[in-house]
C-alpha cells in the first residue's frame, strides 16, 4: 500500500460547547427530572460534550410544546409557508455543510469523506425534496385533502445520525406534523446543531423538539399518550417492543429495522466492478448500515477468483483517523458495538468458518475493528443469520439462480439485496423473487430522497423517501 501523508480535515470549523440542554419549544433548556451523560469521540475516547438526559417530565414538556405548535402554528400554516421554512433549512445545511460533516465524523467515527460526500449532501437533498411536497399534498395520490397526524415521536439510531434525522423530520414537517425527536445517546451532537439551525431559520417554536437520552427516554417518548405517530429506526428487537407498546392505541407506526442482505455475484459479473460493490456494500460506514451487504453469495465457479480479488482490494483499505481525507474505514461507534462485533466474529470462528483480515495497524486509543471476511460459512452459522453491524462479511456459495434466491431469502430480514450479473433478464427474474425492499443491481448502497427505502418481513414496515414516505405522516 502507498504511504500517504496525513491529510486531516481541520476541526476548528466546529464549536462544541461543554454542555448541551434539551431543545424544547424553540429554546435549549435544562432537564427537570433527568441527569446527564457524555458523548465521546469513538476514535480517541475523548469527551466531546456533556448532554442532558431527558426524563419523563421533560418528554412530556416536549410533547406539549409540539402539540401547541401543531394546533396553533404549524397545522394551520399554509403549505407554501411550511415549504419555505424547509427550503430555508435545506439551504442552511448546505451553507454549514463543512461544520456538520466534521461534527458528524467527530461524534460518530465515520470517515470525513463519507460524512462530507454522502451524509450531509443527502441531508440537504432530503429537506429540499420534501420542502417541495408541503404545498402539493393534495396531488400526492392520497385523496383530495390528506391531513397530518399531529405530533410525531421519532427515535433514530447512531449510524447515520443527521441523515436519519432528515429522513424523519423532513417528511413529517412537510405533511404538517410537529415532532419530538430523540437522537441516539452516542451521537447527539449533529441533532443539537440542527436545533440551532432551526433557530437560525426562525422555525416557529415547538415545531421541532429534540430530547436527548438513552433507551428510557425513547420509551417515555413512544409511550406518551400525547403522540399520534411513532417512527423508529433501529434494531428489530426494539422495533418489536415498540410495536407491542403501541398496540391498542391509534398511534400510526413505521419501523425501519435490521437487515442481513445478500449480495449475489454471478459468474458472468465483471469481477472488478463486483468487488468494488462488495467492498462498498459491507465496509461503507464501518458496516454500521442496516442495509449492508453482509452476506456475499458468490457463484461457485467464480468464488476463488472473486475472493482473491476481494482480498487484494481489502488490503488497500485505509483504517484510521475519521477526519483524515484518505481514510476508508473509521472508528466503530462505541465500546458496546465493538464488543458485539467481536462476540459474533469469535462465534464465527468457533463455529468453524475461516476468518481473514488484511494486515492492518489499528490506533491504540478508540474503538477499531479491521475489515474481516469469513469463508466456509453455512446458513446455520450465527454470522450468516444475525446482524453484526460491523465490517464483517460472511461468504457463502451457490450453483444455480434458484439456489441463490433460496439462500438470499432464508432470513427473517428483508431490507435490501444486491445482484451482480451482465444478463438483464436474470436481474429482473432475481429482483422479482428477492423478498427485500431495495434491490441494487450492479450497484449497492445507493440512496436518494426520491427513492422509497424500507423493508419486508422483520426489517419493519413503511417506507421513507419519495412520495411513499409522505404516507407515514398523513391520515391515509
Amino acid at each position: 500500500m502507498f504511504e500517504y501523508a496525513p491529510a486531516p480535515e481541520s476541526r476548528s470549523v466546529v464549536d462544541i460547547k461543554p454542555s448541551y440542554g434539551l431543545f424544547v419549544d424553540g429554546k435549549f433548556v435544562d432537564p427537570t427530572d433527568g441527569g446527564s451523560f457524555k458523548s465521546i469521540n469513538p476514535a480517541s475516547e475523548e469527551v466531546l460534550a456533556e448532554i442532558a438526559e431527558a426524563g419523563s417530565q421533560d418528554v412530556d414538556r416536549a410533547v406539549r410544546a409540539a402539540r401547541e405548535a401543531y394546533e396553533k402554528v404549524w397545522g394551520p400554516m399554509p403549505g407554501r409557508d411550511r415549504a419555505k421554512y424547509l427550503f430555508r433549512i435545506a439551504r442552511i445545511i448546505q451553507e454549514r455543510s463543512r461544520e456538520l460533516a466534521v461534527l458528524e465524523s467527530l461524534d460518530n467515527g465515520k470517515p470525513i469523506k463519507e460524512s462530507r460526500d454522502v451524509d450531509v449532501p443527502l441531508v440537504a437533498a432530503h429537506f429540499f425534496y420534501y420542502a417541495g411536497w408541503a404545498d402539493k399534498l393534495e396531488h400526492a395520490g392520497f385523496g383530495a385533502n390528506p391531513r397530518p397526524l399531529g405530533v410525531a415521536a421519532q427515535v433514530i439510531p447512531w449510524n447515520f445520525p443527521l441523515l436519519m434525522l432528515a429522513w424523519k423530520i423532513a417528511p413529517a414537517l412537510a405533511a404538517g406534523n410537529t415532532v419530538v425527536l430523540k437522537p441516539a445517546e452516542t451521537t447527539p451532537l449533529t441533532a443539537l446543531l440542527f436545533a440551532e439551525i432551526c433557530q437560525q431559520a426562525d422555525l416557529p417554536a415547538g415545531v421541532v423538539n429534540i430530547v436527548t437520552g438513552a433507551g428510557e427516554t425513547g420509551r417515555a417518548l413512544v409511550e406518551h399518550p400525547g403522540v399520534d405517530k411513532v417512527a423508529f429506526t433501529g434494531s428489530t428487537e426494539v422495533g418489536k417492543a415498540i410495536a407491542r407498546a403501541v398496540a391498542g392505541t391509534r398511534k400510526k407506526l413505521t419501523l425501519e429495522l435490521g437487515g442481513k442482505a445478500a449480495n449475489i455475484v454471478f459468474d458472468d459479473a465483471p469481477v472488478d466492478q463486483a468487488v468494488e460493490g462488495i467492498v462498498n456494500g459491507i465496509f461503507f460506514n464501518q458496516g454500521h448500515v442496516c442495509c449492508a451487504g453482509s452476506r456475499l453469495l458468490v457463484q461457485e465457479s467464480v468464488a476463488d477468483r472473486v475472493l482473491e480479488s476481494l482480498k487484494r482490494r481489502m488490503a488497500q483499505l485505509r483504517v484510521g483517523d475519521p477526519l483524515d481525507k484518505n481514510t476508508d474505514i473509521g472508528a466503530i461507534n462505541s465500546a458496546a458495538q465493538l464488543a458485539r462485533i467481536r462476540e459474533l466474529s469469535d462465534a464465527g470462528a468457533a463455529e468453524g468458518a475461516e476468518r481473514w483480515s488484511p494486515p492492518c495497524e489499528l490506533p491504540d486509543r478508540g474503538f477499531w475493528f479491521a475489515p474481516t471476511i469469513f469463508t466456509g460459512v453455512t446458513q446455520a452459522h450465527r454470522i450468516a443469520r444475525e446482524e453484526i453491524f460491523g465490517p464483517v462479511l460472511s461468504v457463502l456459495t451457490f450453483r444455480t439462480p434458484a439456489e441463490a434466491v433460496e439462500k438470499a431469502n432464508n432470513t427473517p430480514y428483508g431490507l435490501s439485496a444486491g445482484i451482480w450479473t451482465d444478463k438483464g433478464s436474470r436481474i429482473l427474474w432475481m429482483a422479482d423473487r428477492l423478498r427485500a425492499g431495495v434491490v441494487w443491481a450492479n450497484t449497492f448502497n445507493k440512496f436518494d430522497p426520491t427513492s422509497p427505502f424500507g423493508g419486508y418481513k422483520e426489517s419493519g414496515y413503511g417506507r421513507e423517501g419519495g412520495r411513499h414516505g409522505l404516507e407515514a405522516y398523513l391520515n391515509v
Partner: protein
Amino acid sequence: MSERVAVRKTYKLFIGGKFPRSESGRSYLVQDSNVSLASRKDARDAVVAARAAVKGWAGATAYNRGQILYRVAEMLEGRRDQFVALGSSVDEVDAAIDRWVWYAGWSDKLPQVYGGANPVAGPYFNLSAPEPTGVVAVVAPESPALLGLVSVIAPAIVTGNTVVVAASPSAPLAAVTLAEVLATSDLPGGVVNILTGRLSETVPTLAAHMDVNAIDLTGVADADLAAELEVKAAENLKRVLRPAPADHDWSADPGLARMTTLLETKTVWHPKGV
C-alpha cells in the same frame, strides 16, 4: 301426494379449495344450522393452504387476477336470491357484487398508481413497484354479513395476497355460501380460506402464527382483544390493519388503504451506461 322433503345443506369450512369439516368434529348451532366450529388446528391448516397458494397467485398476471375477481362478481350475480334468503338486503347484495367489480379493476392499475419511476440524482434506472406481503389473516366484520366480508377479502387478494378469514361468528352462512361462489370462479384453491366458529379460538392462533405476514383486525369489536392480538402480531412484525370503528359505513368508497397496507414496496436500482 306428500310434500317433498327438502335436502338441507351441511355448512363446512373452506380450506385449500375444499370443504372439510372441522378436524375437531365440532359444530355450533347458528342461523338454524349446524356450522363447523373451527379449532386452532384448523387455523394452522388454513395457513398452510394459504402459504402454498401464494406462489401461484402472487405470480399470476394482474390481468388474470382481475378476470378472476370479475368472475366472482358474475357468479355472485347468479346467486343473489340465496344471500337474500340468508338475511342480506337486496341493496347489500348489489353493493357486494359491485365491490368485486370495483376491486377487479384495481389489479392492473394499483401498481401504476402506487408505484413508478423515481427521478434519482444520478445515472440510475430506479423503479418502485408494490408486491403482495404474502399470507393475510382477516377478521371479517360481524355485519353486514356479505358486504363486510367481500369488503375485506377482495382488497387483500386482488394484489396477490392469500387470506385466512375468520367469518362473522353470528352470521357465518353468508361466508360459507360465498365460499361456494369462490370455489366456482376459477379462484385457485387456498387463495381464500374461511373459518367459522369463535374468534377467541382461531384468531389468537392466526395473530401469533409466524408464517402469517399481516393481520386485518377489522371485525374485532372488543378493544382489549384487539390490543392483545396486535401484541401477538408484533412477534414477527405483521402488518396490521386496526379494527374499523363501530359506525363504519360499508357502502362508502373504500379508498386504497385496505390494499396498500397489505403491500410491500420494492425499489430496484440499476446503473445507466454504455
